């Protein structure tokens, strides 16, 4: 974390791209704009709050089932199913990524070409369609496949391909002089990769990997569509209970809060890693950014 002064400087330099430091008149104008926009934002929130109250979203009836241990267990069960899918898919995607990245980095075209094809293909197919391959195809032939595995396979193929690109970019980000130096002191190819390139590359790509795992965790929500009983699916069931007045709004607010808390914590970890790597590099490679635009981390380089 930068100290207060650093942050101040960063803020100033960021602000001054578009406008000068405000003088007395601009300060007054900004203050007026600030008051007006604050009022606007408050009015917007108040309108949403009014709409909620007007349609009875704050009624005790709609919230009381969250006090029941059974409903809490249900939510926890959904969260567990989400985390289980994300955990298995993350491990498999990292493996998939490592294998295909090393194939793409290989000197032999026979490995490089098919790996490039696979990685580019899976990144271009919508993730839901990949999940459907694992869901509808076995369903039609009457093979029993757990919905968990349909979801996990889709997540592995897509995120594994993105991770392969991140790994490749990470290795390529280590300056070539490092490789040359290693060869010059007599290391073999395997040693160069293991002792010189990987330790530096891992440090430079850690933030990007963590934020891709956040994307993976978010994408487990697609399990809802193939009725895998993850958090969102459980939320739909809890929200659809008539005796509690169909509490969809409260339920989805709670589910959203859970997702935001978990993904937010992981995103914060990615940013922290990026800051830390930037400050004490310990790697000759440029730190790959925790992706912040688009889902396509590999395009960030």
């Amino acid at each position, binding site marked *: 974390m930068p100290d207060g002064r650093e942050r101040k400087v960063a803020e100033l330099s960021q602000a001054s791209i578009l406008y000068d430091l405000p003088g007395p008149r601009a300060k007054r104008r900004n203050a007026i704009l600030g008051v007006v926009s604050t009022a606007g934002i408050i009015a917007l929130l108040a309108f949403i709050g009014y709409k909620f109250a007007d349609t009875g979203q704050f009624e005790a009836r709609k919230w009381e089932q969250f006090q029941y241990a059974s409903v809490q267990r249900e939510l926890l069960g959904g969260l567990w199913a989400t985390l289980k899918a994300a955990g298995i898919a993350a491990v498999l995607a990292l493996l998939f990524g490592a294998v295909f990245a090393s194939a793409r980095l290989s000197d032999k075209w026979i490995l490089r070409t098919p790996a490039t094809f696979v990685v580019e293909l899976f990144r271009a197919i919508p993730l839901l369609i990949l999940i*459907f391959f694992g869901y509808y195809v076995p369903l039609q032939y009457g093979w029993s496949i757990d919905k968990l595995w349909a979801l996990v396979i889709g997540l592995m193929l897509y995120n594994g391909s993105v991770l392969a690109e991140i790994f490749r970019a990470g290795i390529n980000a280590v300056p070539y002089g490092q490789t040359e130096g290693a060869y010059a002191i007599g290391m073999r190819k395997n040693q160069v990769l293991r002792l010189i390139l990987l330790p530096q590359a891992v440090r430079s790509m850690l933030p990007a990997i963590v934020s891709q795992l956040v994307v993976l965790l978010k994408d487990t929500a697609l399990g809802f569509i193939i009725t895998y009983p993850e958090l969102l699916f459980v939320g739909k069931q809890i929200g659809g209970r008539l005796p509690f007045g169909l509490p969809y709004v409260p339920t989805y607010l709670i589910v959203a809060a859970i997702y935001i808390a978990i993904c937010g914590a992981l995103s914060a970890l990615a940013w922290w890693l990026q800051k830390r790597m930037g400050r004490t590099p310990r790697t000759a490679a440029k730190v790959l950014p925790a992706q912040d635009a688009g889902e396509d981390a590999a395009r960030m380089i």
Partner: protein
Amino acid sequence: MGEFFRVLTDNGQLFVDGFTNTVKLFLIAAVGSLVLGTLLGAMRVSPVPALRAFGATYVNLVRNTPLTLVFAFLVFAVPKLDVNIDYFASAAIALTVYTSAFVCEVIRSGVNTVAAGQAEAARALGMTFAQVLTLIVLPQALRAMVPPMMSVFIAMLKNTTIAAGFSVLEAGAIPAYMAERGEPQFAVLLWITIGFLILILPLVALQRFLERKWRVAR
């Protein structure tokens, strides 16, 4: 192989309807998220702290929420607030709300790639705010924004398939219809994949071309 082509010719209308709706959904949401995202991006680089905070909060909340949840909220929860919108509109709104957070980030980081010295020099020459923006900052920032912006829209095109889970007939919904007709799903899904490749590959090619052409030495 014959069967593979038969799947397409027998169900041609379904594929055409599905992909037409996908493209429609994509275009509507693209315009919507460009507008909303630019607005949010402007908030995030504005000199007013309240607007900056609002933009940052929006982006951080939306980016950490799964798109499927945004869809579910619009389709199941919003009608309970006495707001009635049809499924297609819900899908377009969900995609817009979600994608504009990413558009906002592209715009913010695009503006930040312009070196501060550029604007300072322009101001030293006596240019007004409008001149600095339109002559100096934006021409440079836009070039930096285009490739990541296209990534965002390519991701959004793929995300339109999620609408299939929420009663919109688009490309992602085709397998569910085909399951009723008992068509071989592997062939169906391959055709959908081919359809998406046809839509996406030109966008990817354009993006790589622009990236090379507009690479700016900094």
